[in-house]
C-alpha cells in the first residue's frame, strides 16, 4: 500500500486590512503596520473640543509643520505596544542586575562624602528634568497628528518616567534608601541657582503650544545637550575622581538616549525633506532652543566641571549641530 501525502493550500482572499493594502499592496502586514497606519480618526468628528473650538479633535493645524502624509513620520524601531514592552522589560532586567551589583557592594555608599554630594547636586535633580520631558512628550502625543508620531511619543512618556526612576534609584543608592537625596534634589531643582535656568527652559516648553516645536525643543535639542553633558562628561569627571561605579549606572541612560535618537532623527529628517518651509521651521526651532538651552546649562556645568565646563558644552553643541546638519537642517 502506498500512502500519498499531499498538502492542500488555502489561499487567503486578503493578506491584510484594506487600509494597509492601499498603502503597501496585498501582502502580509507587520504588527507595527497594523498597530500604526491610519489608526487615528481623520473625519466625521461629531464635537468640537471645548478647549480648542476653532479646530477638530485631531487636527493637523496644531503645528506649523505641514506633511502631505503624516504617516511618513514612522519609527525605525517599529515599536508598538507588544514589542515595546518586551524590549523595555528585557533592558530593565539588565538594569536591575547592575543596580543589584552596585547595591550589594555598596559601591556608591562607599564613595567619599564629597563625591556623594556631587552626585546629589549634579545628577539626581535630573529626575525632575525627566518628569518635564514626560510632560512634553505627553503634549506631543496628545496634540500631534497621526498615530505614527503620537504612539512612539506616548511610549517616550513611559520611557521618561523610567529614566526618572533610574536616576532616583541612583539617589537612593547614594543615601542608603533614606530618600534624603531625593528631597535634597527637589530642593535643588526648585530653589538652587545652578538649576533654575534649565528649569526655566523645561517649563518654557510646557507653555509652548506647537507640538512639533516641543518635539524639537525637548527630544532633539534638550536631550542632545543634557544627556552627553551629564551622562558622559560629568559622569567621566566623577569617574576620574572616584572610579566608575556611577558610570555603570549611567550607561543604561546613554544606551536609551542612543536608541531613542534613531526615532528622533528619522522624524526630523523626513519632515525636513518634505518641504523647504518645514526645513526652515525645524532649523529655526533648533537654533532658537539651542541658544536658550546652552546658556541654561552653563551654571550647573560649571559647578560640576569647573573650568572644563566651556569645552564640554561646546562639544555637546558641536555634536548637536553636526547631527542637525546630517538631518538636513541649516543651523
Amino acid at each position, binding site marked *: 500500500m502506498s500512502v500519498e501525502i499531499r498538502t492542500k493550500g488555502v489561499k487567503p482572499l486578503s493578506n491584510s486590512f484594506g487600509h494597509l493594502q492601499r498603502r503597501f499592496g496585498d501582502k502580509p502586514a*507587520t504588527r507595527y503596520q497594523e498597530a500604526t497606519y491610519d489608526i487615528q480618526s481623520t473625519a466625521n468628528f461629531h464635537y468640537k473640543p471645548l478647549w480648542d473650538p476653532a479646530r477638530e479633535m485631531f487636527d493637523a493645524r496644531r503645528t506649523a509643520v505641514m506633511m502631505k502624509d503624516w504617516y511618513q513620520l514612522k*519609527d525605525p524601531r517599529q*515599536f508598538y505596544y507588544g514589542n515595546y514592552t518586551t524590549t523595555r522589560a528585557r533592558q530593565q532586567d539588565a538594569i536591575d542586575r547592575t543596580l543589584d551589583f552596585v547595591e550589594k557592594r555598596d559601591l556608591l555608599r562607599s564613595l567619599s562624602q564629597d563625591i556623594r554630594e556631587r552626585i546629589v547636586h549634579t545628577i539626581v535633580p535630573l529626575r525632575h528634568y525627566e518628569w518635564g520631558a514626560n510632560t512634553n512628550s505627553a503634549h506631543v502625543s496628545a496634540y500631534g497628528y497621526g498615530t505614527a508620531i503620537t504612539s512612539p511619543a506616548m511610549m517616550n512618556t513611559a520611557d521618561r518616567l523610567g529614566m526618572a526612576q533610574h536616576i532616583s534609584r541612583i539617589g537612593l543608592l547614594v543615601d542608603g534608601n533614606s530618600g534624603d537625596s531625593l528631597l535634597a534634589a527637589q530642593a535643588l531643582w526648585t530653589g538652587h541657582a545652578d538649576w533654575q535656568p534649565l528649569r526655566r527652559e523645561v517649563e518654557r516648553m510646557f507653555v509652548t503650544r506647537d507640538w512639533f516645536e516641543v518635539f524639537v525643543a525637548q527630544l532633539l535639542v534638550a536631550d542632545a545637550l543634557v544627556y552627553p553633558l551629564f551622562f558622559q562628561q560629568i559622569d567621566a569627571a566623577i569617574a576620574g575622581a572616584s572610579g566608575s561605579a556611577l558610570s555603570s549606572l549611567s550607561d543604561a541612560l546613554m544606551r536609551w538616549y542612543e536608541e531613542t535618537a534613531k526615532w528622533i532623527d528619522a522624524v526630523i529628517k523626513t519632515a525636513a525633506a518634505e518641504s523647504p518651509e518645514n526645513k526652515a521651521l525645524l532649523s529655526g526651532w533648533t537654533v532658537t532652543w539651542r541658544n536658550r538651552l546652552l546658556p541654561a546649562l552653563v551654571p550647573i556645568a560649571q559647578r560640576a566641571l569647573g573650568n572644563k565646563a566651556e569645552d564640554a558644552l561646546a562639544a555637546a553643541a558641536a555634536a548637536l549641530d553636526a547631527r542637525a546638519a546630517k538631518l538636513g537642517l541649516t543651523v
Partner: protein
Amino acid sequence: MATTSTQPVFIALQANNDTLPIIEAIRQDNPQAVVHDYPAMVKIDCPGRLVIRRETVEEHLGRAFDLREIQVNMISIAGNVDESEDEFTLEWKSA
C-alpha cells in the same frame, strides 16, 4: 573557486511575523529571487546565489539582528552556506 553555477538555491522559512522582515530583505537584495507561499511556509528560490544581509534585515526589522536568529525559523536550505556576521550566503560552489 568558480561560482558561476546558475542552478537554483533555495531557503525555506516558516511563514510568521518573525520572518516577514527577513523575506522582505531577501526580496530587496535578490531581485531574481522568486517567493513561493505555501501553507505555513515560504520558500524562496534564486538562481545561482542568494544573500541575506544583516543591515537590510535590520532596516526592515527596526532593531539589531543576529543572522543566527534565522535558524529559529529556518525549515530547509539548498546550496553551500557561507556565513559571516554581515551576510548569510547560499550558492553552489564547484570544486
